[in-house]
């Protein structure tokens, strides 16, 4: 599903965030991405979502080379990728419903279809009864789940999450991770960047470890069988 082929990323400041990185995330898998702070996790996710462009190397998503995607085509690629980033969260002047509906409005679905799908997504993350609420009235965990509902409402085949459990307590973090597992079980490829080694080592999913912009190790946590 995702293939990095000798990808380097040098930021304008001259810092090299990724150095000749090659990796493969198979379709239908839930994969964790971890590593020290500054290892390049966010950079990797930004390259996949076309927020940044690689300095060299190729990135293929489902066989499509992202280097060949023009500026005008970017929105259409992004519609196939559900993105859950910590800093790009909700629009606080709109209700939960309107936040989650946004990807569907962009894609041009009709009114009834939007209502049906938004409720299905909110139901999935357990927030159906909050559809009329404004995000500011929700807890951090609930807001995160609204973000997840928005990312999945368009049924993208690929889901990216950057520190989705960043400031949640362990109990909430487990719930969020379980949500991702549920999406994965119906065929969605999921890639999650996280620091939470404790949590992911107890889950049975492949882990990619970055170190200073290179792939240090790939495999399963010690406690979990592949």
């Amino acid at each position, binding site marked *: 599903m995702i293939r990095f082929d000798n990808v380097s990323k040098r930021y304008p400041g001259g810092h090299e965030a990724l150095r000749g990185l090659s990796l493969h995330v198979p*379709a239908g898998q839930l994969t964790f991405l971890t590593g020290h702070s500054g290892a390049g996790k966010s950079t990797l996710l930004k390259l996949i979502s076309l927020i940044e462009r690689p300095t060299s190397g190729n990135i293929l998503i489902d066989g499509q080379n992202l280097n060949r995607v023009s500026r005008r085509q970017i929105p259409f690629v992004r519609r196939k990728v559900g993105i859950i980033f910590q800093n790009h969260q909700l629009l606080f002047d709109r209700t939960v419903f309107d936040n989650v509906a946004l990807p569907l409005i962009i894609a041009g679905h009709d009114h009834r279809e939007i209502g049906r799908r938004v409720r299905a997504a909110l139901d999935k993350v357990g927030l159906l009864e909050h559809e009329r609420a404004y995000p500011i009235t929700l807890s951090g965990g609930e807001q995160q789940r609204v973000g997840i509902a928005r990312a999945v409402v368009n049924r993208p085949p690929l889901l990216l999450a950057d520190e989705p459990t960043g400031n949640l307590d362990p109990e909430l973090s487990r719930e969020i991770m379980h949500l991702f597992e549920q999406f994965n079980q119906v065929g969605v490829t999921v890639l999650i960047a996280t620091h939470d080694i404790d949590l992911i080592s107890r889950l049975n999913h492949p882990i990619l470890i970055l170190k200073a912009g290179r792939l240090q190790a790939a495999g399963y946590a010690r406690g979990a069988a592949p």
Partner: protein
Amino acid sequence: MIGRRSRKRGAAVRRPPPPPRQRRPRGARARLTWPRLRWPQLASPRVYAARHLQVLIESLGRLARQPVASLMTAAVIGIALALPSGLLTLLDNLQRLSLSWEGTASISVFLHDEVTGDRARKLAEELRSWPEISTVNYISRDEALAEFRQHSGFGEVLDALETNPLPGVLVVEPTRQDLTPAGAEVLLERLQALEGADLAQLDLQWVQRFAALMEIGRRGVLVVGALLALAVLLIVGNTIRLDIQNRREEIEVTKLIGGTDAFIRRPFLYTGFWYGLGGALLAWVLVQLAFLLLRGPVAHLAGLYDSSFLLQPLGLLDSLTLLLAGALLGWLGSGLAVSRHLRDIEPS
């Protein structure tokens, strides 16, 4: 494409589901099925039109939530639009006023001395049948002399003359359509060529002067109008620029979840449209109020000159043109700002 392939592969690596931990809220109905993606998806025309209508109303609602700021912007636009449209309406009124002074543009046809009164009256009769002539008035040599005697005060001088030095005159008034300088000139030539006509003279001077003045006025208003239209573009552009900055976050999020430039541009374009339309409405009210206030005094003044001239405010067509121009300028101003500033905002 991605959708179909990933579904197959997804099925291949599917694992048995873990025990259900998540409690499902009561009343849960639809279940998400993954992934069923058709791409590219184009919205149907009906959905597209509904979307435009929705953005149109949403952007108006957004403006209504900040009534003071919105009205201030619209007021500045309104004043800028009121000036040229008011001046143009004034020019139109002057034009009408000049037409009501039809009599002043008459042509005097001086006849040869040997033309008798009967011949002259026949000639006048013939001229009345010309379509470009509205009235013909014959003044015989004797009448001319009597009039001159009465008005000039040179009665004794005339008495000393043995013969009447004054010619007979046909005073010809063109119809309104032929009152243009060019039309009057053509008529003049035809009258000059009449048998028995010595000299045809048009009081052209004021017609031409007035036309020239009107032309200068019109050009001047056009220049002022163009400058103020530019001002409107800048006002709307700057307002929209601030709006874009305030909604930076929203733009970033929208781009991140696949919003095209056209999608992001749309609400700003409609906001500009509303500013322009609102400004034009205010301009309309200002112009109509000003003309309403002037109407009484102008009618009074006209009455003193024995004229029934009435000041006319903006007509239906001109009003519609004003509104359309305002809306268009707002749209354009916003488009300029959006094309300049939207590209700079990218998610990071």
